[in-house]
């Protein structure tokens, strides 16, 4: 009878709480009835119990029948795209952490043991995070987006049909894939290896030094905002992969994401606390100067204007993106 209890538990434990007790009682009665018919009133043996449970079939299938539907985190329609994006994300994370590891090993070959440990731990946590984020994003897309479509099925009109693919509205698959890869690589490097962003010196072949340009602590404070903006960027790329063509909504979302990038940049560089405060002293160390004096002068002139410079460069890049996106809007406005 232990087996019967196990079976009933396997069916009911994933069912809604309020039905559980009732279904449990009902199943118990059913199995006893089936056993009774099988043994004609005798005492059921273990093999009788087994045969009856086999007849009832796989408990999770029975639970599905009780529930009336199967449950998914990611619906079957989206699953292939989900796996596809997951592969890109995991690959990008592996590439980024490996690049960081190789660079750090080249910088300080003596520390290889510690670097290897941190490489393994960051690649593990990176894969885990990537997996979690992609899954969350797809869950939201599925839950918010497709369910709405399903609800609309009742009031479907022929005018709802998407237009035939036009080369002007079609999104080349390569674009979002490249974009996702770069975003993730940058994300990983900014998160785990911000100290590698700096000015590199190699006074002689065996020693290499990096003078970091950012204040690590201040920069870390901005990381959550960076993650959110980058996640939105990845979300927009995923939508591009799923839809395969430009829509007005997608362009609007893209514009919002570009503006958010700019807001984030202004927010991060609004004061100079993000820069390494000891940068100029560190860079002026005598053993570095002899070899790089021209470069040093250049850096010393550029450094005080770094904030404006970075903002200007980012502004230009984001401005160009914004313009091309708006132009795209006018191109496809009449086509969608």
């Amino acid at each position, binding site marked *: 009878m232990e087996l019967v209890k196990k079976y009933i538990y396997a069916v009911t434990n994933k069912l809604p709480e309020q*039905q559980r007790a009732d279904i449990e009682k009902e199943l118990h*009665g059913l199995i*006893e009835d*089936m056993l009774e*018919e099988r043994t004609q009133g005798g005492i059921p043996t273990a093999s009788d119990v087994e045969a009856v449970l086999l*007849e*009832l*079939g796989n408990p999770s299938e*029975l639970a599905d029948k009780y529930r009336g539907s199967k449950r998914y985190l990611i619906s079957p329609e989206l699953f292939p795209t989900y796996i596809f994006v997951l592969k890109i994300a995991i690959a990008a994370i592996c590439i980024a952490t490996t690049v960081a590891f190789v660079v750090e090993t080249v910088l300080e070959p003596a520390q290889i043991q510690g670097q290897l440990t941190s490489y393994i731990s960051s690649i593990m946590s990176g894969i885990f995070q990537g997996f979690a984020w992609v899954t969350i994003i797809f869950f939201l897309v599925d839950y918010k987006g497709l369910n709405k479509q399903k609800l609309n099925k009742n009031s479907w009109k022929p005018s709802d049909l998407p237009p035939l693919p036009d080369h002007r509205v079609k999104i080349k698959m390569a674009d979002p894939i490249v974009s996702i890869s770069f975003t993730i690589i940058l994300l990983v490097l900014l998160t785990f290896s911000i100290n590698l962003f700096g000015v590199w010196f190699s006074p002689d072949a065996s020693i290499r030094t990096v003078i970091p340009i950012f204040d690590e602590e201040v920069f870390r404070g901005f990381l959550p905002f960076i993650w959110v903006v980058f996640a939105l960027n990845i979300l927009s790329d995923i939508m591009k992969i799923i839809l395969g063509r430009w829509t007005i909504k997608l362009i609007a979302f893209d514009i919002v994401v570009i503006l958010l990038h700019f807001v984030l940049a202004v927010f991060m560089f609004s004061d100079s606390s993000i820069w390494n405060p000891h940068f100029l002293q560190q860079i002026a160390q005598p053993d570095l100067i002899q070899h790089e004096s021209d470069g040093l002068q250049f850096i010393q002139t550029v450094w005080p204007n770094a904030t404006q410079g970075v903002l200007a460069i980012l502004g230009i890049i984001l401005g160009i993106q914004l313009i091309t996106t708006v132009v795209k809007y006018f191109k496809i406005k009449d086509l969608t």
Partner: protein
Amino acid sequence: MDIKETINGLTQEMRRGTIIIGVLSQLSEPQYGYSLVSILEEKGINIDPGTMYPLLRRLEKQELLESKWDTNETRPRKYYLLSPTGKEVYRQLCQEWQMMTVSIESLIRGGTGDGVS
């Protein structure tokens, strides 16, 4: 051998649509799940209990059936009975069924005759 599988699949599909009317037809008297399975089996309609029990719950949720636990017997059993709505639904389903059999019958018998040529 493939043709047998195809026939099996198609037959099952046809049967699936008739399960509900079969179940409703026997519920003007209260029955519990397993007794229904046996009754229908005797009349040549096979529904495995794993399908019957969830189906009864679904029909109850759709308010076609009413249920009551009977705890007087050796083991507690949940008895199902047609609700007033269920009776009306069953009556109309029967009409639909009659019309359908007439239509299909005339399609099979009329037209090309044996349905092959």
